[in-house]
């Protein structure tokens, strides 16, 4: 059996075995959970603006994200965020809470391998690519704007 044929058979085997998430309801769950997280964010922002009239919209938005990140980290620590993620899929990944979860989750998971080489290194296993590519795109945008 040559390599190509073997790879093809292997891929067919993988396709057959990998659990399928091809369910229409997951779209609705993702929509609902994502939408609700955004509404909670809007609620926090409106409460902050009402409590502190001197706050600018931009600063209220920054506070709102920090508060969401705090609760997402806490829920991740308690093991509740992953339970939401099981049925919400992208609804729990795409909001900023998912970014927070992607940092807290491996940090907690790999604590047993040590604070520095476990917790601190693995913390960025998902957030690292996001920040690297985010910085790259922001530098690119900056360069383009410099010459406009």
């Amino acid at each position: 059996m040559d390599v190509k044929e073997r790879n093809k058979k292997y891929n067919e085997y993988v396709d057959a075995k990998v659990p399928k998430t091809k369910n229409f309801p997951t779209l609705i769950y993702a929509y609902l959970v994502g939408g609700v997280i955004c509404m909670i964010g809007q609620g926090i922002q409106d409460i902050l603006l009402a409590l502190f009239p001197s706050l600018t919209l931009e600063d209220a938005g920054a506070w709102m994200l920090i508060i969401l990140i705090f609760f997402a980290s806490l829920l991740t620590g308690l093991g509740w965020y992953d339970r939401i993620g099981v049925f919400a899929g992208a609804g729990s990944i795409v909001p900023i809470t998912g970014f927070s979860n992607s940092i807290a989750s491996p940090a907690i998971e790999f604590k047993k391998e040590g604070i520095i080489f476990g917790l601190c290194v693995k913390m960025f296993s998902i957030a690292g690519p996001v920040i690297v590519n985010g910085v790259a795109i922001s530098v690119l945008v900056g360069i383009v704007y410099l010459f406009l």
Partner: protein
Amino acid sequence: MWLMYLKVFLVGGFICMLGQILIIKTNITSARILVLFVVIGALLEAFGLYEPIVTFAGAGATVPITGFGRSLAKGAIQAVKEKGILGIFTGGLTATAGGIAAAVIFAYIFALIFSSKTKKF
């Protein structure tokens, strides 16, 4: 007031649903989704297309990770206007410093407090 919350829900949910469609169609990993959405958000902001969505839907556009990309691009553009070449390097991370620092420090604290639960799949 309540109309605004409806808009937040519809737009925020829609952006998340796009991510779920990607998962279903391509079995994409969550890291790739996050990277892709940040880049898309930054590009839309650079072309001036994301700001109208923020005006329309508020947190519905700033809470999804595309809003993180938007902050990166917006910060870079503003910093370049104010500081020139230095702004290319300082703009993006300065604008998103709050979110990144919060995510890192809260993860650090809670990782020290909590231990991982055994996952059952």
